């Protein structure tokens, strides 16, 4: 009997569960900023920008689900309803990226600046050593490697595989969720998060060298290689395209920036919503207070659904589709309304608060 190993692996396992819970929180924390910008776009305008932000938001949900599946596999219990799960914006992302703050903003250049920071690859961060989402997942992979040395693939058989989210709930153009059974499938799940966000990992890639057609360069999302889906750029570069109003084309590098055809971006066809709204902005007994409350009730129901879906009832995700529609309609309803007597003429926006059942 060897007393050292079990203790070490218990500690490591505890650490890994904490890290993966943090990953779930990290992925989730990108959604209110992305969805706020998405819903602020007047319907029918900015079609390309709408499709990009929507696609990236769905991929963030994919990432959250991947992280949750790894956590479930190693016997953890993802939590989406505890106090603090939803951050108060502006906020540093939960992975320790202290060099920028995520914010709730209308679709605008300043919003896109923040979105680029959220998705920025390690090669491009302002200060060497600034942590990125990719670095954060690198740490998780290190912990996994240490544990696999101790336990092998048994690590991924602690939780009930029936509790994981199956591909039938998440498939299609934004990735395919696969259940985690062993180290390979766990690494696949985590690597696809990095690839979609920052670019396909390619250690041989030199960012200053131009690339020929059809060759992996690090700026693709990896969707073609990982899921046999249409090639698209990683999140950072798709936001950068919107920010610069121009497409990347073959031959471009992160240094050159995009030099392809221009993109029609219309920042005027956007509701001028309040930045980082908080509940006290809407006085009690006013209609906006009621709208925000209604939004938060739906939002809370969504988080409750996720909590159940990640803890043994994945079929709950079916009705979550409907809840997402309700959430969108309510957000758009608020954003159409100008805040009474606001000197800057700003419009309302939802506050993304989790309400305990007794407060709904």
């Amino acid at each position, binding site marked *: 009997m060897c007393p050292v190993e079990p203790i070490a692996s218990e500690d490591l396992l505890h650490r890994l569960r904490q890290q993966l819970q943090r990953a779930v929180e990290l992925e989730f924390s990108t959604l209110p900023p992305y969805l706020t910008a998405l819903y602020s776009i007047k319907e*029918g305008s900015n*079609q*390309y920008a709408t*499709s990009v932000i*929507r*696609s990236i938001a*769905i991929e963030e949900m994919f990432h959250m689900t991947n992280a949750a599946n790894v956590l479930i596999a190693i016997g953890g219990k993802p939590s989406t309803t505890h106090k603090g799960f939803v951050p108060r914006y502006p906020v540093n992302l939960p992975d320790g990226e202290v060099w920028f703050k995520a914010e709730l903003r209308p679709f605008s250049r300043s919003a896109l600046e923040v979105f680029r920071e959220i998705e920025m690859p390690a090669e491009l961060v302002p200060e060497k050593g600034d942590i990125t989402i990719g670095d954060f997942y690198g740490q998780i992979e290190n912990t996994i490697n240490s544990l696999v040395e101790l336990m092998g693939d048994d690590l991924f058989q602690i939780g009930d595989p029936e509790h994981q989210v199956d*591909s*039938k*709930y998440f*498939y*299609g*153009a*934004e990735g*395919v969720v696969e259940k985690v059974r062993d180290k390979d499938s766990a690494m696949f799940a985590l690597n696809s998060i990095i690839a979609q966000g920052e670019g396909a990992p390619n250690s041989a890639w030199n960012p200053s060298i131009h690339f020929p057609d059809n060759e992996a360069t690090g700026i693709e999302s990896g969707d073609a290689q990982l899921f046999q*889906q*249409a090639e698209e750029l990683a999140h950072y570069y798709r936001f950068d395209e919107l920010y610069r109003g121009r497409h990347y084309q073959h031959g471009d590098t992160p240094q050159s920036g995009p030099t392809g055809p221009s993109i029609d971006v219309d920042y005027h066809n956007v509701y001028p919503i309040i930045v980082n709204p908080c509940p006290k902005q809407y006085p009690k007994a006013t209609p906006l207070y009621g709208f925000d409350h209604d939004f938060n009730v739906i939002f809370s129901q969504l988080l409750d659904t996720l909590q159940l879906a990640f803890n043994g009832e994945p079929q709950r995700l*079916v009705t979550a*589709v*409907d809840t997402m*529609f309700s959430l969108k309609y309510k957000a758009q309803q608020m954003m159409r309304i100008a805040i009474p007597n606001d000197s800057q003429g700003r419009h309302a926006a939802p506050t993304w608060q989790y309400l305990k059942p007794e407060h709904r």
Partner: protein
Amino acid sequence: MHESEHFDVVIVGAGISGAIVAEQLGAAGKKVLVLEAGTGTQDRYFNEGDKAGYHAYLERYYRSYVKIPNAPYPNNPNAPQPLVTDIEKIPAGQVIANHGYFVQTGPNPFSSTYTRSEGGTTLHWLGTCLRMLPEDFHIREKFGRGLDWPISYEDLQPWYEKAEHGIGVSGDAGLQSYDAIDNHSVHIPFSKDYNYPMEQIPQSYLDVHMAKHLRDVDVSIENQQYPVQVIATPQARNGMPRGNYRPVGAVGYPGIGQRCAGNSSCVPICPIQAKYNALKTLHQAQALGNVSVRLQSVVYDLEVNPDNGRISRVLYKQYESTESAQVEKKAVSADIVVLAAHAAENAKILLAANVANSSDQVGRNLMDHPVLLTWGLMPEAIGAFRGPGSTSGIPSLRGGAFRSQQAAFRIEIGNWGWSWPKDAPVSTLEQYVDANSFSGKAYKEHVAEMYPRMFRLGFLVEQLPSANNRVSISEDYKDRIGNYRPVISYHIDDYTKAGMKQAKAVSDTIFNHLNVSDYTQYSESAPGYVEYEGHGYEYQGAGHLVGTHIMGDDPKHSVVNREQRSWDHPNLYLVGCGNMPTISTSNPTLTMAALCYWAADNILQDLAA
């Protein structure tokens, strides 16, 4: 004369039939040209400059006040299409020629329409994908009615499977075999271990409510008891995939439409293309590089080589703009020519070219499902106006011994309240504010009280083939660019009317069991009003145009053989619902798709020979 362009295969029509045949042949390496009479969106979801994408259809739909099935799809005088708003009563002995595309000679109006644009009528279909019953292929032999097919259910079964995977159908084979229904006539054998590529679309709250309350309900028809049983309907609508199947999203925007999101506008348009349309198959066909689609090219004639009876050239008129009647006449040739232009349009082309008609059956045996609607208010809210247009039906009366005396029918359970019979909710304002002077709070309360309880059934009644129900052409009736308009003669016979009478009786039984207050009213002034045994009924068109160039065993009485090849011309294939000798009770698209996969296989064998 200069040489015409030559292809392995020329297909006339870029709807579902043409798309399937093109995709299958293109995948086998054949060079294929598809000629489409209407305009199209090619692979665009969004508009690109002045080139319309699918989004232009959506914009048109949102803007249109009357949201009829063709509302999103522009009317094009160079390839006109029928509209449900064209339909009117036909006074005895008269011809209606000045109201829409069809010329109608009656006695009953033909109420169904189709879409002449790239993608065809699948742009606005509901997506129902039912298989036919085994007995449907032999109703002459079994019941002394209609015609027998030259093929059996067993012959078509593998092609049904191919079609269900090709177009993407959601359903549960265990349920769709109808084994659970206590009526052996409707049982449909499925291959062991076979299942649809996607899981069943969730049933609506209404479906579940009805299933629960009708569990023990029987009706008596011709002295036999039949169950009234609710079963989920298989649909070409994306749901959760089984195994490695991957749902196909919107063409030009594949990230959306991966699953049905309940937009509740399937007819006339699914905004995210979660519902199948033929643009998807056309996209797949063209992606392989062997298939090209030529839009705005209206085929008007076929040339026959008198030495061997082969179709030597396909003649078409190409137009630059729908704003102008200016056309350029062109011709192409092919080893094999496939007409996939739609039952009515195929008949028109064949009659205009005077080909394939040694049987004198071209254009004849036109059928549809006359739909009897019944509607009422549920005692409590049942969530009307949500989800796909229909997610379940009552298939237990699709077959039985009674078919020797009266038409069978399938009952469709509508999820959208009174949208079909009463045009709700579009008509709401007109009806309650203008006509009944409701306003303010009273109006809101009235709507909130009524609308969630709205309920309607649709009875798709079988119609038999008849030589007098037909599409013909006349020099007197042509469209703007000189092509024939369909002249339609149509009547509802007593066999179908007896089915309507039975349908209303079944409806009464169902309404009784569900405590529904019946609001059904059939108006003598309505175009589809018919009387039978002293009672009035009213039918609507189902959009299921079937049987204008039927298949058979005998060249004297049919237009194509079981391979779907013209009896008269060895290199001419006809595909589409026109090949179906009887319509029975299933929406015909899935059967047509299955036949198309089979036809493509036959064409490949011909090309190899």
